[in-house]
């Protein structure tokens, strides 16, 4: 501890170089935090654990193939099933087809919807208002904020997969589940377009236990295996991840980039430390002449590299924490809004950032420290100029 002032002064011996090195640790660490948060969000469960009890059933070939509505009573009868609801992807567009106006639009069964997605709570209007008005719209809070919509406002969705324009009235706003979507009564869709009547894009099942979640997918898929409409049943988690993996192996990509970034900052920090130690060969020999032992010298050089790295790393983490609310808001308003609802500052990511910082500090200082402590004192003293 009594050596701390010396170590601190050594860190800032060459101010410009130290500041550049700190910057080259700060910015990558900021990026790593963002990437880590995206990864952690992919792995996290935005429903706060409730999604554990949910399953989705879709056509085994693809999400664009329909299942018959006749499966509904069969699914409801199965032991372990608490509730089943229907969700059809409507597609369509709002105002125009630009990415900034993209959000999820579903034709659903209002009665059962809120029982399956029971983490959703209505915060404006009421569930009864929404269910009582066939052209009522249930809207996620995030989307309300993004567009500045008000309760009672009329919203027109223009069909693209299905022809025709549909005008809805906002009757209820919810928080908790996927807040970046709108939901309306599927009967509206069926009345306007009789050919979709009786067809279902996805069933969502709320089960009563973890055991049921494990057992039901096989049972359900076995039940419909030899029918004209075979099914694929997945947990909510698997279903979400299958969407993400459609974007390519995002996780692997992000992880690889983050790893490369860590290696690059390690090289930069190691270079700084090597230069710094090389300039001080004589000085270190002098300290050892005064009686500083090898462990102390090792500690001084490692302390310096860890401190340098910590300056950069903690500033990077700080920048991340400060900018997170803005980043999240920006993500929520982007086409990835649904994904961003689960985004938060994960303590694990901050811990990882801190760990990387300390690791970079230790590794970058290790070789110079061992060299400095290992050189013979007379050789070090001779190396003048």
């Amino acid at each position, binding site marked *: 501890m*009594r*050596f701390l*002032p*010396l170590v601190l*002064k*050594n860190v800032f*011996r060459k101010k410009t170089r130290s500041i550049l090195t700190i910057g080259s640790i700060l910015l990558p660490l900021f990026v790593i935090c963002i990437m880590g948060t995206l990864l952690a969000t992919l792995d996290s469960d935005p429903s706060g654990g409730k999604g554990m009890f949910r399953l989705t059933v879709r056509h085994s070939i693809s999400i664009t193939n329909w299942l018959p509505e006749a499966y509904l009573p069969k699914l409801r009868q199965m032991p372990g099933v608490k509730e089943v609801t229907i969700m059809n992807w409507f597609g369509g567009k709002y105002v125009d087809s630009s990415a900034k106006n993209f959000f999820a639009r579903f034709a659903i069964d209002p009665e059962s919807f809120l029982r399956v997605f029971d983490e959703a709570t209505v915060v404006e209007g009421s569930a009864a208002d929404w269910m009582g008005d066939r052209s009522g719209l249930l809207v996620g809070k995030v989307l309300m904020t993004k567009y500045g919509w008000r309760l009672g406002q009329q919203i027109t969705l223009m069909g693209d997969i299905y022809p025709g324009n549909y005008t809805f009235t906002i009757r209820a706003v919810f928080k908790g589940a996927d807040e970046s979507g709108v939901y309306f009564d599927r009967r509206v869709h069926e009345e306007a377009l009789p050919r979709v009547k009786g067809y279902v894009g996805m069933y969502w099942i709320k089960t009563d236990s973890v055991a049921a979640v494990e057992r039901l997918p096989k049972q359900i898929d076995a039940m419909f295996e030899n029918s004209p409409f075979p099914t694929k049943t997945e947990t909510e988690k698997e279903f979400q991840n299958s969407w993400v993996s459609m974007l390519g192996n995002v996780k692997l990509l992000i992880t690889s980039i983050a790893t490369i970034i860590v290696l690059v900052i390690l090289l930069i920090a190691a270079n700084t430390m090597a230069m710094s130690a090389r300039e001080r060969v*004589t*000085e270190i020999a*002098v*300290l*050892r*002449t*005064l*009686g*500083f*032992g*090898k462990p*102390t010298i090792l500690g001084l050089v490692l302390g310096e590299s860890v401190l340098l790295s910590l300056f950069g790393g903690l500033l990077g983490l700080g920048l991340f924490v400060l900018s997170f609310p803005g980043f999240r808001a920006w993500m929520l308003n982007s086409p990835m809004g649904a994904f961003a609802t689960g985004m938060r500052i994960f303590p694990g990511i901050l811990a990882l950032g801190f760990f990387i910082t300390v690791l970079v500090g230790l590794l970058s200082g290790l070789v110079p420290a061992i060299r400095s402590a290992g050189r*013979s*004192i*007379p050789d070090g*003293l001779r190396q*003048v100029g």
Partner: protein
Amino acid sequence: MENAIQPLIQVQSVVKQYTRDTQVLTVLDGLSLSIDAGDFVALMGPSGSGKTTLLNLIAGIDRPTSGRVLVGPDEVSAMSEGALAKWRSRNIGFIFQLYNLVPVLTAYENVELPLLLTNLSKAARRKQVELALSVVNLTDRTDHYPRQLSGGQEQRVAIARAIATDPKLLVADEPTGDLDARSGEEILILLERLNDEFKKTILIVTHDPKAAACAHRLVHLDKGVLKEDVRGAGKTVGIAAAATVSAGK
């Protein structure tokens, strides 16, 4: 001379060799020397004769190839590296030709450096540092950085650093070698005072006749062996010996 004085330093048949590839370079060739406590010895000789090497062996920062080096009761040549570091911090004050102050530390902090290795409290360290700086007459430069000091002042800070832990032995490798005449003289006066008043044993490597003149004993080294050893008190002997040295060149 009385035999009652116990020698502080005993160098016994010391050989120091460097092996480069297959060539063996013998820097010190069976050298023996003893130095009394309280003495002021100047080590002289042509460049490359092994003066620095001998100084390093005595100060415990290097080891002989064979032979023994004793300082007081301690066999320096037999100690482990860790023990030697500790021993140096208590027993040796080192003064370099190029001062070798730590540039990012103030005069005060430079003098405090060796004290950081002791168990002394901050307040006790402060007392020691202030005392050392007052001995070298630099109490008004406490917060100056080395680049804000003249060469002579830097060397005085270095001397304060060397005496901060109150070691019995001061070794100096050409301490006036990089200074102008006036500053050099100041340093020599200071060393004399440390020898006289504070009873430090001083071993100094020098080419400077004035420095040699301050010493009570001159040891002349050539090609790793003792050539001349002139003892005597006062400056006359020193000057005479210095004249011999210059004449010998």
